[in-house]
């Protein structure tokens, strides 16, 4: 039971050291402040203990400067911590451009992972060291939370939307993967291992891992099978907009609004086609809610992302 009795977590990402620095600063600050308060209480309690029953202490008058001092000083300290924690959070929020993408679906009670090249894993995640990795999270059922303590990252997977997190692993090794948001019966079993591999090992893994089609290829297959191609044609505007080159670009809607066709927009348009209709089209598309699961949705989106631009017939510049 004493084997490996850690008091501080391993740090294996670029984010970890920054988080640990603030944490240790806060620990030091807390020790300092509580020591000050505890010593003052202890000293007063001993120094001013009642020496005889009828003792009446001299009145002490309040002091406005003192009150202002101990209101304003914590304020300044807190604003410093706030600024520090927030700026680090802002820096940690958006993934760097060119991050490698991996897709994660939470499901009672497992993490299902797809790599763009097609490898799939359950409760295991293999990533290379020294390269930023962006995870797109979805869930088939309830809220889950993807948590890798060694990376100091955590993000909820929320039904009905995509969330994302990213990390840049710095040390090869095996690290805990947990579900941090209570999700029912086997919540504490919904986890596994993140394997951070050196580049050559990672390449060996990725070529050795059972590979079917890439996500985009699987998406294309679904695109055919579900009949999407009958309206979304590549060569000419059909009953639906041309999807070639649409990803990441602005789309003008019926009501004049412009939205960026990102993963969230594509997801919504597949599950709930009537909500944001592209200008010039009518709602003829049926909902695919309940017909495809989150993993398949991610494949279709990967396919749409992979389509090369072929003119912008309906996505004005």
């Amino acid at each position, binding site marked *: 039971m004493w084997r490996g009795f850690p008091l501080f977590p391993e740090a294996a990402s670029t984010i970890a050291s920054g988080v640990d620095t603030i944490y240790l600063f806060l620990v030091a600050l807390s020790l300092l402040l509580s020591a000050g308060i505890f010593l003052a209480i202890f000293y007063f309690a001993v120094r*001013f203990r009642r020496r005889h029953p009828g003792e009446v202490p001299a009145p002490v008058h309040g002091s406005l400067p003192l009150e202002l001092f101990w209101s304003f000083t914590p304020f300044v300290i807190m604003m410093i911590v706030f600024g520090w924690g927030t700026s680090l959070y802002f820096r940690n929020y958006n993934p760097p451009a060119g991050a490698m993408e991996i897709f994660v679906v939470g499901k009672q009670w497992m993490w299902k992972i797809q790599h763009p090249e097609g490898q799939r894993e359950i409760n295991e995640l293999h990533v290379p060291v020294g390269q930023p990795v962006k995870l797109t999270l979805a869930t088939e059922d309830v809220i889950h939370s993807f948590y890798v303590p060694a990376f100091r990252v955590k993000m909820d997977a929320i039904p009905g939307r995509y969330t994302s997190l990213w990390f840049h692993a710095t040390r090869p090794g095996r690290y805990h993967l947990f579900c941090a948001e209570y999700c029912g019966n086997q919540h504490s079993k919904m986890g596994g291992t993140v394997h951070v591999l050196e580049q050559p090992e990672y390449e060996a893994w990725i070529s050795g891992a059972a590979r079917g089609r890439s996500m985009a290829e699987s998406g294309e297959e679904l695109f055919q099978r579900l009949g999407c191609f009958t309206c979304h044609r590549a060569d000419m505007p059909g009953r639906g907009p041309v999807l070639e080159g649409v990803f990441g670009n602005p789309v003008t809607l019926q009501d004049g609004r412009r939205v960026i066709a990102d993963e969230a927009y594509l997801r919504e348009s597949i599950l709930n086609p009537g909500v944001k209709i592209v200008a010039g089209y009518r709602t003829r598309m049926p909902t695919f809610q309940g017909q495809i699961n989150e993993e398949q949705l991610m494949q279709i989106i990967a396919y749409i992302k992979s389509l090369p631009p072929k003119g912008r017939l309906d996505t004005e510049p």
Partner: protein
Amino acid sequence: MTRTNYLNVQYGVRSWLLTTDHKRIALLYLAAITLFFFIGGAFAVMVRLELVTPQGDLVEAETYNKMFTMHGVMMVFFFLIPSTPAVLGNFLLPMMIGARDLAFPRINLLSWYVFVVGGVIGLGAAISGGVDTGWTFYAPYSSTYTNTAVITTALGVFFAGFSSILTGFNFIVTIHKMRAPGLTWFRLPLFVWAHYATSVIQVLGTPVIAITIILLAMERVMRVGIFDPKIGGDPVLFQHLFWFYSHPAVYIMVLPAMGIVSELVTCFSRKKIYGYSFIAMSSVAIAVLGFLVWAHHMFVAGMSLYASMVFSVLSFLVAIPSAIKVFNWTATLYRGSIVYQTPMLYAFGFIGLFTIGGLTGLFLATLAVDVHVHDTYFVVAHFHYIMVGGSVMAYMGGIHYWWPKISGRLYPEGWARFSALVLFVGFNLTFFPQFLLGYLGMPRRYHSYPEEFQVLNVMSSAGASILGVGYLVPMVYLVWSMRYGKPAPANPWSAKGLEWNTPSPPPTFNFDQTPVVTEDAYVYQKADEEVPVG
């Protein structure tokens, strides 16, 4: 010797169940919440026993999930929220302001019945299978996926909420309209200020949880899509609604505790409180700011950057009034005449543990750090330092301090000091290791866990058994003292405050004549001269 008082004026079950005397109702509440406290405690025992070993081997995962859920539900809704206001507040508030009773004595009794109905429904849910959603009832797990007694439990909480609203509204009216002549707002004991602030939160916040429960029930029973995206809802909306009440609810638990501590610190250092108006106004500031920080529970739930930033800065700000209180209590000790009676030991315990709880709250308000520690044992440790180390310590201190007034008997001081010490040691041993576990990354609500977390978990469970002893001993000697304790004088602590100017136990209508107040609260420094009354 046998003066007529509120206890001996009438006997028989009927005289208790139909009473409108705020003091008797306080005792009805005391009995009810003590029962819920020990039931909630029994669930905690199961949780800590399971966590002694890393494998989930004592009970099934499903059972474990129900244990921590019902521990949370019982403790939060049926013990902590009513604890200080409904027991000590009910008993003392009218006496502290020189009134004969609360403004609406019958509504006060009604609130107890509503509470008991809620408690019985909640207990019924626990017995008939229990609920496994966590006390936070997050959707869509609670609304769609679990097949446990969500609706019944939530209904119990719904009733308890109405009892809380009734109490809060009764207190507000009482404080506004029934103060004795001369008792201006800034002469009020800080206990009363704290309860005023608490009552405002109860009245404004509790309806939101009631609405949330109704929406949850509509989705679960009628499949109206509100929170589950598969039928058109939004699960994050549930979290906003839930925390809009449940964060201020933390202040419902801690503000009255702060009120108790203000009373204890002055009495046992025989000093006027330092910075009266700053302590009073900081209660109000907490009540206001406490409504604006709810989304700090949701920093990793996909909120926008800027929303997170705003809730982070507000969460830092809400810590300032609490810090002001701690500094003023400490300053009150300066050049005082300090004795270490049991209530004062609890007050010291409160200040120490609340300080640690508050400082670790800053970690959680810091966005970059919260991402790591959110939903880990760090959070569990933090809120137990606030709610148990803070609220329950103060509640225990208050029970001891006013016990002579409530029961007319003195409790055994030696035993009381001993158990206060046991509680303090047991508490820290239970919850301090959880801070370390949290930063190491152990998620909360885990039935089984990786082996390397075992040592700290064993320490925590060992502490919990000490903590259990610390709660059982007072239970025994307080009950014992009701019959065998030495009779208490009217004012055993030489305390100031109108409640001490009436016999122990007080007569039904508290005062023979309405007192007239001519000076500030806590005028300890004019020797043992009586507060001019009458």
